[in-house]
């Protein structure tokens, strides 16, 4: 079963079309394993991206270097999924 320990979901708020373009470039970096829950389309819409733990440092550095604002929407994806699983098990038992 695939697990997501240490993975985070970042909510990114691009301020202009240039930052949107940068985020599109980021999304094309297949080796990072990013999963865009909300894609970079327009500066009026936030971008949510699920970042695997192994790519976190690189993605944060990229965002920081380009001064693209973001905050952590989900601190640890697996923690939330564990909570979800616990609720389901509690119901079953």
């Amino acid at each position: 079963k695939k697990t997501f320990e240490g993975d985070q979901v970042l909510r990114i708020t691009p301020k202009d079309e240039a930052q949107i373009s940068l985020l599109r470039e980021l999304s094309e970096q297949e080796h990072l394993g990013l999963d865009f829950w909300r894609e970079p389309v327009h500066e009026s819409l936030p971008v949510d991206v699920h970042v695997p733990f192994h790519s976190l440092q690189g993605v944060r550095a990229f965002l920081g270097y380009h001064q693209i604002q973001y905050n952590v929407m989900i601190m640890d994806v697996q923690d939330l999924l564990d909570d979800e699983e616990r609720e389901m098990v509690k119901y079953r038992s």
Partner: protein
Amino acid sequence: FPRSTDDFVYTNYHDLNSIYSFMDMLVAENSNLVSKIVIGQSYENRPLNVLKFSTGANRPGIWIDTGIHSREWVTQASGIWFSKKIVTDYGRDPVLTDILNNYDIFLEIVTNPDGFAYTHSRDRMWRKTRKPNSGSSCVGVDPNRNWDAGFGGAGSSSSPCTETYRGPSAHSEPEVKAIVDFVKSHGKIKAFVSIHSYSQMLLYPYGYTSTPAKDQAELHELARKAITSLQSLYNTRYTYGSIISTIYQASGGTIDWTYNQGIKYSYTFELRDTGRYGFILPANQIVPTAEETWLALMAIMEHTKNNPY
């Protein structure tokens, strides 16, 4: 397992077997109102079950589907709640009763059962179908890019390894083809609502083109009315508009195809996430999500009934 649908826990997520058992139980308890029809089989040979709520023969229909993207668990959970709400309110709520005395409602709770089973067993974040792709190690097609409406255009991907892979051809996915065949053979579907999560939006065609739908003014006004109703419950913030103007260009989408088939009231929802959880909405949010969405669905269904075409 609960002995009746009254005992079923609507405030929790359930796996595919539990949902299919729930559907059978609902049918057994309400055989005068609900039946189960199987419109096809998934790639992995799971039945594609649809609940039909009907009080008479040869009625026009209203279609609602949830769970075409398997990881959007709040949608399947909401579909379960809607089905119970329909049997509970029929005969009690005059508006729903009137709708059901004139229209059948079709509800497909798990539109992508292979993907949904996979989210429970292997990868909670799986979105697509589970059909292998020839010549690629990557599995699955985005069933919301697989419809014959601008198929292959911008806003979908030709790469099997992406989340928006459109598939080799329009309607290549059995989960999609089954709905296509059903809608065509029925011939009188008058409203079609496809429910996704997340980001709190109610959208109407088009996604593949910026050309406005010919009924855009009416669709927009009805969306406004539906969202006003939705927000009256918990004040959840929703936006609405055409797909291409509200989110992004997306080709091969469900409701673009249904609209082009002549189903005027074609809408797609993106349900609530409260801004913090994305696809991992906690189970205690299921019922509030379903309750508020139901109000919007009722607005769309009532308008459909009052505006025959």
